[in-house]
């Protein structure tokens, strides 16, 4: 229990961010027309590719002689990149079509 309370007080800043971000996310989506739901889902999908940052940190910190960690880290970065690049490019392709005609 004390560990839990310590954790809360040590990470108060992050907890604030979590709570505020939840509200920001809710607010942002609240006013979106259904037309844009697919691109929005796709864009959000690309943004959670931010997990790649974690994968990079893992690989940067992995011991040089730990082959398994290196290999898994490599795969994690690769998959994260796929998520980010594929996600943003595909969203852009969808939105390109919504371009207003003159």
């Amino acid at each position, binding site marked *: 229990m004390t560990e839990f309370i310590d954790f809360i007080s040590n990470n108060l800043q992050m907890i604030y961010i979590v709570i505020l971000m939840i509200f920001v996310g809710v607010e942002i989506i609240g006013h979106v027309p259904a*037309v844009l739901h697919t691109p929005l889902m796709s864009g*959000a999908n690309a943004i959670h590719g931010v997990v790649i940052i974690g994968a990079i940190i893992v690989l940067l910190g992995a011991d040089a002689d730990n082959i398994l960690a290196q290999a*898994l880290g490599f795969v994690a970065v690769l998959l994260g990149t796929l998520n980010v690049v594929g996600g943003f490019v595909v969203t852009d392709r969808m939105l390109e079509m919504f371009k207003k005609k003159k």
Partner: protein
Amino acid sequence: MEYIFSLEFIYLIASITYILGLKMLGHPETARRGNLIAAGGMTLAIFGTIFLYQGEVLTQTYLLIGSAILIGTIVGWAIAKKVAMTKMPELVSLFNGMGGASAALIGLIEFHHYVGDTMSIITILAGIIIGSISFSGSMIAWAKLNGTLNKPLRLPKYNMLNNIIFLVLVAFAAYMTYVGTGSQLYLYILFFGALAYGVLFVLPIGGADMPVVISLLNSFTGLAAALGGFLYGNMVMLTGGILVGSAGTILTFAMCEAMNRSLFNVIFGGFGDTDVSVEGSTSSVKGSIKKTTASDVAILMNYSQRIIFVPGYGLAVAQAQHAIHELEQLLVAKGIEVKYAIHPVAGRMPGHMNVLLAETNVDYDKLAEMEDVNPEFSNTDVVFVVGANDVVNPAAHNDPSSPIYGMPILDVENAKQIIVNKRSMKPGYAGIENELFFNQKTSMLFGDAKTVIQSLITEIKGM
């Protein structure tokens, strides 16, 4: 100290671009720029992380990261550019799965570094469970939309079984935390258990509900990324992850609403196609259908004043988007008012139909949303339903036993004439009969959507 400051600063900028980007994605005029802004922030964050890293890094490691990013970029870019727009939903699902897998792998690698630190272990295990479920679930969703796996597969009592497996997973993770084990064996058991749960979770769900599932898994991956952020105290992962987690949840709610399902039903209920009621409602529909020909429909359209097209996924499958756009232009040139009525869940994802029609240069203003177009049906001469079925099924209004009862639909039955183009009398995705086809005002125009529309064009041109 200097380094840490600048990296934190980069993360701050990146976080702002995510919020701004998502916000801008919500408006048609700014959407594209919003996406690019978020992409720019992401690029900044990635390069910042690599080059401002504190500590000694071997050249070999840089090579490893560089090549992973290079391969991922080339492959991701190529897939995203090449895939047809009709395949968009499965692609989003695929990329979502990649993110989930990445999150799970991070947990697998970091686990042994944090043994003994209870809160970090909880974060890691939660990340592994959520990331793995998101990965394997997305792969199943991908295969289902792809057509590789088209039948809902169900183990006996799958609902209870799934819930039990989930509880066992959570209990096992709790046990691992409590004992403070450093066992890699336990870790991998948890990993594979979560993967299996993801498969079993999505497998019984019918294809019609895949959008909800993808949206849900999308927010799961966001959550998994945020857990990674918590573990490292990394602000950009935390903000990005939580933002997607909460936005994705709201989007899931919006979709559930459009399909008349509660979120509880989605997570714990047996959802998907309800095979029980299929037989029940089949017998309740009586009467005969009226067939018509392309030339009759062409004459009808030619002498109408207001026509509304109701496109469904069948249109996309037949690749008839260009044909219908041509038909629309032809009719408009004759002074006829033409609109497209878009149901929020037409296609395989909300807004999917809009994307498909926009691809063929249909005017944005001609795409009418359900709430706006529904009052207009009563003074519409002809409604042309192409490849849509469940979204125009009046059973949603007047048959409480129907599985789609209560779902908002397009009220096409209020129009003066209804033309329905279908390939056959086969029921739609929800697997239920549609009494609209037996309506006095309805005529059926059987055939492949593209062929049918093209012959309509030829007929009208000849008038």
